[in-house]
């Protein structure tokens, strides 16, 4: 067994256990902590796939930004150690049925479809310069327009956040 396989198994175990625990845990802060582990392990998966920049973005935006925001919001809105109320049994059964049938169906489709995969060994690390020119270029396979759309969206988000959080 190679090192990359062992790392993959560890990361996927963290992701599977963490994501299930983060939706069934009844303490909100514990759920946020499990979510933290899932997000860090996802960054590890990106590193394993040779997307180094994406792993850095995942760590800094998701783990460093969104999750800290979640923890602040949890402390502002609930008592520490308080158990969340559970939803009704029928709701939980309905959710499990939907999720399990959807999971079985998607697994069947993914397993039976023949993907034309390309061998990974000849793929090298992504050059930062290519990434930068692709992000702000206007040719084919370059992404200036979505980049600008995201910047307008973030501006709208800042203004909206100020408007919502402002005291009357």
């Amino acid at each position, binding site marked *: 067994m190679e090192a990359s396989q062992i790392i*993959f198994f560890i990361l996927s175990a963290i992701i599977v256990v963490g994501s299930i625990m983060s939706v069934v845990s009844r303490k909100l802060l514990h759920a946020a902590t499990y979510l933290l582990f899932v997000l860090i392990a996802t960054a590890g998966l990106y590193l394993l796939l040779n997307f180094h920049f994406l792993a850095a973005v995942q760590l800094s935006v998701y783990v460093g930004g969104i999750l800290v925001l*979640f923890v602040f919001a949890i402390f502002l*809105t609930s008592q520490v150690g308080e158990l969340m109320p559970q939803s009704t049994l029928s709701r939980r059964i309905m959710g499990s049925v939907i999720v399990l049938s959807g*999971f079985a169906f998607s697994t069947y489709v993914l397993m039976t479809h023949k993907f034309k995969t390309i061998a990974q060994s000849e793929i090298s690390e*992504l050059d930062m310069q290519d*990434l930068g020119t692709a992000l702000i270029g206007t040719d084919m396979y370059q992404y200036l327009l979505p980049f600008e759309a995201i910047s307008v969206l973030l501006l709208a988000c800042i203004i909206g956040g100020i408007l919502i959080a402002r005291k009357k």
Partner: protein
Amino acid sequence: MEIPMQCYLIVALVMFFSGVYGFITRRNLLAMLMSLELILNAVNVFFVVFNRFLFPEHLEGMFFSLFVIGVAAAETALAIAIIINVFRSSKNIDNEEIKELKY
């Protein structure tokens, strides 16, 4: 020997469907938002894996996940601002007990 693509996809699938389960069964608005993050994260993994294994000469999947991460950050910030405001006006963020949107 390298890891087959299906292994990555199954892991992302587990993440996606546990997010869906949380979104259906949770009653706390913040917990629902966390399940939404799980779903978005799983979709990012799907994009990246398909990009790397099927079309490694292009970068569409990677840029799409970058933009999804940006949108997710904006959406979470606004949603948390709204949730804290709801909590301020009704002392509760349980989705069964918030009956009106009046501010």
